[in-house]
């Protein structure tokens, strides 16, 4: 379907380009006369590219805006400002038929396999539902056959077509969600915590399936998750979000082995390592304090209230997401985009020992 990918970024084409994307949810008070008293700055100026055939992982703490980004990419939420270019066209401005055409190519798989499927619909109806909106993909007579094919692709028995969601386990339900996401032959699938609700053993089955389908159909994934080891396994590049902004973005090696943003360093050091030997060796950065409210984020660098390196400048000047000047022109893996005034490498022992098994 797609030509083989070379790993050279220069020769790769972005399929999705996100520029200064902003989503503010208004905070109102009063019942009759709603007065706007502020806004939750859920996503506050995010830019990144998604290349054809790659997986971009997005990680970050609860409430940092990951799901909101996903919904903005799907155009399920109206952006406050900013652009999302799909093959050069800004989809935040599309409506009607043009939007429908684009939507066909960008699909979503949701977190919760227990609640995201309608319990009253059969599996066949759930997977075939997108054909109601896009009948051109599968003419009426072909639908059942197409649904059976999709069931087969995701490793479910096509005979199960008339069963209901409650008759399936969590992992099987997530497969149903993936089959529905594939129904319209999309190019991009946005996965919002697709395996977070599953057990380790079932998680591995679903991740393997997703990788297989990517190879087979040349799909591009945005993979949102809070399990950093799963994200590393599946991603080509990883973006780290904090409080509505992107703190750091780079290839998986750049982020996991050469993080330069203090937040990424803290995040990686806090990941529990499945190796009791590492207990004593690990040097963890325990962050103090709680994540500030996105309705009232700190000035300057959003991470400064918890950052051990914060200085005066961090409160005044917002650090931009760019290759830090200290690394400019260097071909070290530390030379990737990081939004910190004092970006520097730090050996994060915990993350390094994951591979020591």
């Amino acid at each position, binding site marked *: 379907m797609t030509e083989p990918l070379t790993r050279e970024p220069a020769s790769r084409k972005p399929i999705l380009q996100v520029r200064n994307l902003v989503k503010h949810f208004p905070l109102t008070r009063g019942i009759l006369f709603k007065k706007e008293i502020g806004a939750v700055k859920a996503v506050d100026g995010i830019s990144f590219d998604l290349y054809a055939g790659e997986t971009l992982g997005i990680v970050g*703490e*609860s409430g940092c805006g990951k799901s909101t980004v996903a919904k903005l990419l799907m155009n399920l939420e109206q952006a406050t400002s900013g652009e999302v270019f799909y093959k050069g066209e800004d989809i935040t401005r599309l409506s009607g038929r043009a939007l429908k055409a684009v939507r066909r190519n960008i699909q979503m798989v949701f977190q919760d396999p227990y609640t995201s499927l309608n319990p009253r619909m059969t599996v066949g109806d759930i997977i075939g539902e997108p054909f109601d909106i896009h009948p051109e993909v599968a003419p009426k007579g072909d639908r059942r056959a197409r649904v059976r094919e999709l069931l087969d692709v995701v490793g479910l028995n096509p005979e199960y077509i008339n069963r209901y969601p409650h008759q399936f*386990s*969590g*992992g*099987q339900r997530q497969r149903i969600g993936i089959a529905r996401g594939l129904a319209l032959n999309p190019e991009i699938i946005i996965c919002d915590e697709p395996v977070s609700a599953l*057990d*380790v*053993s*079932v*998680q*591995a*089955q679903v*991740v*393997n399936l997703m*990788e297989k389908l990517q190879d087979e159909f040349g799909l591009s994934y945005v993979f949102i998750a*809070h399990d*950093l*080891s*799963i994200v*590393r*396994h599946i991603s080509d590049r990883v973006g780290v979000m904090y409080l509505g902004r992107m703190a750091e973005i780079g290839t*998986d090696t750049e982020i996991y082995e050469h993080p330069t943003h203090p937040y990424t360093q*803290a*995040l990686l050091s*806090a*990941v*529990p*390592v*499945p*190796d*009791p*030997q*590492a*207990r004593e060796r690990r040097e*963890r950065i*325990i*962050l103090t*304090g*709680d*994540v500030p409210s996105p309705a009232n984020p700190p000035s300057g660098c959003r991470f400064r209230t918890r950052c051990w390196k914060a200085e005066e400048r961090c409160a005044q000047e917002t650090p931009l997401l760019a290759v830090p000047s200290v690394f400019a022109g260097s071909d070290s893996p530390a030379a990737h985009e990081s939004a910190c005034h004092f970006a520097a490498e730090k050996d994060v022992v915990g993350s390094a020992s*994951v*591979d020591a*098994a």
Partner: protein
Amino acid sequence: MTVTDERTGAAAPVSTTPLLEVRDLHVEFHTRDGVARAVNGVDYSVNAGETLAVLGESGSGKSVTAQTIMGILDMPPGRITQGEILFHGQDMLTMSAEQRRKIRGRKIAMIFQDALSSLNPVLSVGYQLGEMFRVHQGMSRKQARAKSIELMDRVRIPAAKERIGDYPHQFSGGMRQRIMIAMALALEPELIIADEPTTALDVTVQAQVMDLLAELQREYNMGLILITHDLGVVADVADKIAVMYAGRIVETSPVHDIYARPAHPYTKGLLRSIPRLDQKGQELYAIKGLPPNLTRIPGGCAFHPRCPMAQDVCATDVPLLHPVGAERGSACHFWKETIGD
């Protein structure tokens, strides 16, 4: 029995009776689809100052066992059909209700997974903490309040004095979980059962909460039963591990041995499914098949339909917990082969 834990060394208190011991516990639920055998002969024990991690996939009976210990099992549909729960050697299932009440909630406390739903949304955090002291220790409002502030300080809620009147929704997830820990600690229990205490939290907050729990445990020399499915958290804090599958303990071991050399194919499969760096770009190892239906648990070894090592005998004979060295056990006919390769 003079089993001293070598790793915790001299510091480990040596006592002949464990703080808590569960023996051959069986619990079933009567459901529309039949009898679900959720717990099928669980044995585990924990000493003062020790952390036992209970591991296993969703539905393996971890929480039901804990609920039975705490006396909060839904009965009906739940039914305890067999077994003993010994606290300092005394069976809680046969003692008088009066005696039991003195233990549960006071000497054994529980922390639940979802802090928001286990706190009452219409009462202030301070009131709910204070209630522990008013009800159990007959303190006055004023005394209880002072105690509550002290506890909130202890679990590091900043500006405890000012925040004592706040409601649960005004606290972050991590802070709410710390309030739950404070409540569990209020009466200085000897044993804490923590059921997925950090599953709903972020890694950075999770690290804060687990550190706090470990520190307080040391300070009070409490026993801790930590229920989780996070193999990383277990490696970080546990002294010993009990792995559950289909309502039974399939492997028990000190923490170091099990990660290095699992003695049960299920444990081995779990450990192998963790993504590792050197496997990037390859398929993850996945245990094949599905968790068993508890109304129709496979005969013989319950794991046999999914086990890569299964032989004919596995479908017919239930494997007992074979001793593997002094402190370990594996409920597998072929534990030697499992540990060997």
